């Protein structure tokens, strides 16, 4: 019965241990073993962004590939293990055919294809060679070999002559390139030319792999010509050269899509793809509300962290956001004509990300709020902890609902505390989740439930508060918040969860983040320029990908 509470307590020791390690690490970056070489399956957004940058935004890439499996907190980690089924490849092929058809149509071909054929009714070897060489390099994220160029050009010529249409040939090879293995899988391979003199087991990413890793990390798109050139010239391997490229990327407008993609993943916003509310309970909550709620938070994050370059922790207390016509009534404010910046008044209960509809509605039932789901999400998404699942055979008699003895959610969830099998973990989730009871399951503000006033007091790891504004402040000052961001961001950039042995690296990045006043752009730069980011472990031939143990639960139960 007490097993679960023991599981929760075990983490406290681990937390102390990491603090001690953290204290020991100096300003120098700790040594790392590096990530294993692997293939990452391209995501829908990466595919769409890449093609939109390459062929222009008027090429429609209206596809939705199956999502990755969330692994160690991130969907992006799932890209490193996901396989491609026959039916998925069929989907990739349809997408490729759709894109190729648009690229060669008369409306686009003139400015997307870098040359004109001498005669459009037959093959043109020179123009096909130019197209294949240039486009192939950007799609496969490396220069094609002479053999590959020859193959694609021969195919383009043969099709053009058979169908008496130069552009049909181009379209067909473009389609083939779009489903080639090195388009769909992002390759992270070691540099065969380089050996670490001190540690023969350590390798580094080859230059093209590094270009891709940087680009998907910061832009969520394939590297452009400039980054590939830096890889080809060796510039990316010099300290100064890599810094130049990374700074260029951080200043690019493409950074916004990169940052959005990361937070969409970290905050679990894929939930919105299928979120629905009971319209008889929350008539104001539509599919558009869900889409706008997600957009609102992403806009808030980008504005705060990129446009204004502010402290990450302040996202948990900020009153600045953006409002849409669909969201305004839910926030009980006057409707705006489109998306507009909005600042909640100082005495508003809407302060920080946790009080936005995205968090409140995604972590609630279709017809009811849930302090437990919200508390669990806060722990797992924002603090990188893992809350164990409920015991399998527990009796729910105590919290049978509806139950007139329990007019408020607090009364209901307090019943858990009477059962030791439940109490251990509910003590982790509920004291924070109950503060969010000021908002119903659709995210609307309220002060009473079933005619009874709502008590929103609680505490987070020993910091007491009386309402949701206090919870936001407690989150802002919780050391787990920046540490979790660092953990997720590094894992996102390198494609796999940070193994426990690499904790000193996490502490190092967290210290740097603190010294840089918790500015996201500085953290992105630190990670992108670190040795760890290029480090690679030698290929272990028969070794399947290591599965990382779940993050430790670091919640302090003894407060």
């Amino acid at each position, binding site marked *: 019965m007490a097993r679960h509470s023991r599981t929760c307590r075990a983490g406290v020791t681990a937390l102390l241990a990491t603090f001690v390690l953290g204290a020991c690490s100096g300003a120098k970056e700790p040594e790392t073993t590096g990530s294993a070489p692997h293939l990452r399956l391209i995501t829908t957004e990466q595919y769409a962004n890449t093609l939109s940058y390459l062929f222009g935004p008027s090429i429609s890439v209206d596809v939705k590939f199956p999502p990755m*499996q969330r692994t160690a907190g991130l969907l992006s980690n799932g890209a490193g293990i996901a396989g491609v089924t*026959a039916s998925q*490849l069929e989907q990739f*092929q349809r997408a490729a055919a759709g894109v190729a058809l648009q690229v060669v149509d008369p409306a686009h071909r003139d400015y997307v294809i870098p040359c004109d054929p001498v005669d459009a009714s037959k093959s043109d070897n020179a123009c096909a060679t130019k197209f294949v060489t240039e486009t192939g390099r950007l799609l496969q994220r490396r220069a094609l070999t002479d053999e590959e160029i020859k193959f694609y050009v021969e195919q383009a010529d043969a099709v053009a002559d058979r169908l008496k249409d130069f552009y*049909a040939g181009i379209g067909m090879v473009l389609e083939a390139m779009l489903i080639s293995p090195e388009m769909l899988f992002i*390759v992270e391979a070691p540099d065969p030319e380089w050996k670490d003199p001190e540690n023969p087991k350590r390798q580094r990413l080859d230059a093209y792999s590094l270009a891709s890793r940087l680009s998907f990390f910061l832009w969520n798109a394939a590297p452009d010509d400039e980054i590939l050139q830096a890889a080809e010239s060796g510039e990316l391997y010099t300290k100064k050269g890599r810094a130049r490229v990374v700074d260029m990327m951080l200043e690019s407008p493409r950074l916004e899509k990169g940052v959005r993609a990361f937070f969409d993943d970290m905050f679990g916003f894929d939930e919105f793809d299928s979120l629905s509310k009971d319209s008889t309970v929350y008539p104001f909550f539509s599919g558009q509300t869900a889409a706008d709620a997600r957009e609102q938070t992403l806009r808030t994050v980008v504005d705060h962290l990129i446009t204004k370059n502010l402290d990450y922790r302040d996202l948990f207390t900020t009153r600045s956001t953006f409002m849409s016509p669909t969201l305004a009534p839910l926030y009980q404010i006057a409707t705006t004509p489109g998306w507009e910046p909005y600042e909640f008044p100082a005495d508003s209960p809407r302060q920080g990300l946790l009080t936005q509809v995205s968090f409140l509605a995604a972590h609630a*039932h279709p017809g009811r709020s849930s302090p437990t789901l919200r508390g669990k999400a806060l722990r797992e998404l924002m603090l990188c902890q893992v809350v164990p699942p409920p015991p399998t055979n527990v009796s*729910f008699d105590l919290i049978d609902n509806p139950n007139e003895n329990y007019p408020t959610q607090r009364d209901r969830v307090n019943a858990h505390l009477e059962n030791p099998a439940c109490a251990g973990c509910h003590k982790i989730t509920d004291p924070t989740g109950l503060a969010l009871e000021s908002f119903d399951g659709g995210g609307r503000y309220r002060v009473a439930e079933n005619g009874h006033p709502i008590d929103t007091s609680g505490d987070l790891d020993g910091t007491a508060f009386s309402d949701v504004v206090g919870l936001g402040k407690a989150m802002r000052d919780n050391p787990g918040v920046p540490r979790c961001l660092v953990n997720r961001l590094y894992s996102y950039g390198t494609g796999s969860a940070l193994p426990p042995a690499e904790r000193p690296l996490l502490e190092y990045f967290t210290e740097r983040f603190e010294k840089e006043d918790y500015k996201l752009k500085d953290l992105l730069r630190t990670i992108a320029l670190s040795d760890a980011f290029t480090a690679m472990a030698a290929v272990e031939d028969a*070794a399947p990908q290591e599965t990382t143990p779940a993050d430790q639960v670091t919640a302090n139960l003894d407060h």
Partner: protein
Amino acid sequence: MGMLKDLSRRRVLRGMLNGGAVTVALPLLNCFLNDNGTALASGAPIPQRFGTWAWGLGCTRSIFVPKKTGPDFDLPEELVALAPVKKYVNLITNTNAYRDNYQNFCHYTGWVIARTGMAPKDRNVFPGETIDVTVANQIGRSTRFKSLTVTATSDVRDTYSYENSTTRNAPEWSPLQLYTRIFGPDFTDPNADTFTPDPRIMSRKSVLSGVMDQTTSLQRRLGAEDRRRLDQYFTGLRHLEKQFQQRLEKPEPIEACVRPNELKVDPAMGKEEAATAFRHRMMTDLMVMAIACDQTRVFNMAYSQAAASTIKPGYEKPHHTTTHEEPIDPKLGYQPTASWFIRRSMESWAYFVEAFTKVKEGDGTLLDNVLIYATTDHGFARLHTLDHVPLFTAGRAGGRVKTGYHIDAKGASVSRVGYTALRLMGVDVPSWGTNSNMTDSVFGEILV
């Protein structure tokens, strides 16, 4: 009455697909069949098909498990919806999903054992390929789609089909997308009067073949696991190549195949039960016609996911939460709303089975040449039990199965139902499953 005469076969079938529940005897076009109706006119035998169906959250045993076993079993109140299809299904109760020494991963362990014969060790690592994939490797290689996987839940994450331990078969979740994939521009109508191979397809196929022939230095630089993923990718490419090849050949006519009317918009995507059941009906009709047109011989349909989030409008909790938090009504002796959800699930199951009986094939119906295996995640969801797990089969698998039986499995593993299905589909393995779920015996009482 004059109008009736003008109803062509095609129009009758189209009407059925749109309207759902009209049963019409179709004029049999004998030219499609051999003399005894067991094979197509071309001489090819009528293909065998295998499918799965899934619902979440088990049952209420006291009002679900029939009192009688064998043929002519009774239908307790949670099963009343099965009345029209009782003769086509077998119900197997009192099975166990043995978790061995591993944890009971709620709403996961149960169905994973039913579909793989193996207890999962971990929520993140799937034990291996699911039964539909095993069968598809046996009977699904010659059709346009090796299998079709569909969910009525509107959530692309809800699937019960795994290609291997790390690759899920993502489901079609939108009826519109399902329609387009099967019956959109890439569909070749086997009964069309004319056939002109598209020269672009020919070019496409030859370019694709070239891509596959290209040797890649990539393989050498990868670890074993990534090489396996790349192999899987190349297997997919070969299947794509075969699809193109098929589009270059005139298909044999198939009497039962009627391209459904074009679908232009998706229905509502909410989690309400009525919306779910509606999508389930639409997608069932499309799936059944895809099978009748021999576009696939293996199929998976999920009515609800394991911890089902189906909503009863006006009731504050979704199905899963209801099973845990709804009080047991002292008069009824069960949870009324939780049972309401299971009754709705059984209505959709009945619809699914019945849909196969509406397409004539040979001298019977499509259902005669199909075997469907239906699973759930728990026996009693409130307590996450893995005993008394109910399962169904439907269809006669080409006359090799008797239907209309209720079988008391007397505590046998759920894998025994799966193993019976595998043998019926011609998968010749001496046993199925591991540890306590390993079995080499079949339910002989339903074999012909």
